[in-house]
């Protein structure tokens, strides 16, 4: 790269403006990468919270079975687990939903709504007994649904992490490309500022001492 038609002043201005633009782009790319990194941390925390909320709900259900449906604290724990999971699900979806994960989120929402409904109905039973087949079948169904939800959350977690990793890799690629471009511009401007501006180059022999 060389600048044969520009004056030294022109070259300096061009180089400065170009460098400034590239630095700005570099900062912007870094900022985008930082934001995505923060998003990933947030999403990871939310996914962990989701898993905890699901486990909390299941624990509450098991406690309800053991206490034959009489424990108010267990019912409240189940309600809290459900509320926390729903909140985390909405937040994650708002942060990472795209064409790739939209269907997964839709499926998870449906499963979750169904599970929540069943948990509320189970907790609302007047009495729960391990010798009552109907109660135990309901418990088995809840367990199966919870396992399916857990599996789908893991699928979404994997997909989400891949998406964020891809964004981070792309950002890193853009930053590297900009740095290469900046270096090329600087090298070109420095090499171009000596030869054309003097109009002639010194012969190699003239540098030798007599």
């Amino acid at each position, binding site marked *: 790269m060389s600048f044969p038609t520009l004056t030294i002043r022109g070259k300096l201005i061009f180089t400065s403006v170009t460098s400034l633009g590239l630095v700005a782009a570099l900062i912007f790319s870094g900022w985008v990468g930082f934001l995505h990194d923060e998003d990933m941390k947030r999403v990871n925390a939310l996914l962990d919270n989701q898993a905890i909320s699901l486990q909390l709900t299941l624990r509450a259900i098991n406690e309800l079975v053991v206490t034959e449906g009489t424990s108010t604290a267990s019912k409240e724990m189940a309600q809290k687990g459900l509320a926390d999971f729903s909140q985390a699900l909405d937040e994650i979806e708002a942060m990472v939903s795209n064409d790739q994960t939209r269907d997964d989120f839709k499926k998870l929402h449906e499963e979750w709504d169904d599970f929540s409904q069943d948990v509320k109905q189970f907790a609302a039973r007047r009495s729960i007994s391990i010798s009552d*087949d*109907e*109660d*135990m*079948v*309901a*418990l*088995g*169904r*809840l*367990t*199966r649904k919870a396992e399916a939800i857990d599996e789908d959350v893991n699928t979404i977690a994997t997909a989400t992490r891949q998406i964020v990793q891809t964004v981070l890799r792309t950002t890193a690629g853009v930053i590297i490309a900009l740095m290469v471009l900046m270096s090329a511009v600087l090298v070109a401007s420095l090499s171009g500022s000596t030869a054309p501006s003097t109009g002639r180059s010194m012969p190699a022999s003239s540098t030798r001492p007599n």
Partner: protein
Amino acid sequence: MKLIQRTSTILVVAFLLCMASTLALAQEKPSTPNSLPGGKAISVEKAKQLVDSKGAFFFDTRSAVNFGKGHIPGATSVSYREKSDYKVDFDASQDQLDLSKLPADKAANLVFYSDGPKGWKSYKAAVIAIKNGYTSVMWMRDGSAAWFAKGYPTE
């Protein structure tokens, strides 16, 4: 040198003891017999055909919780409360089975299943059904585990 020999001997003895106890545990629950006296042991594939053709009543003898987790479509839960020994001449009086869930028609096709080849509950339920006059009793010996492994539908 003696210490090494003694340690080696102790380790070998401990290993043999572990192996023996593992074998003893493994033999704790014997496999069910391959056939059903007075009835018919059927494969999972045959059971699938019966489900598709609605050619039989299916009875799940596992615990109600396991039934709730997933079962053959259309199956009825008849939890077999088992206290008797794992043997062909078990004492049925020690166990509980809700026979009222079986159809009134004694000639109806019945299929009993539990977890798998070591699931004695379905075998015992089938034997009790035969003793109670049911004439077309089938037993899916490979159980729900084989059904799930085949990827057949569940509900």
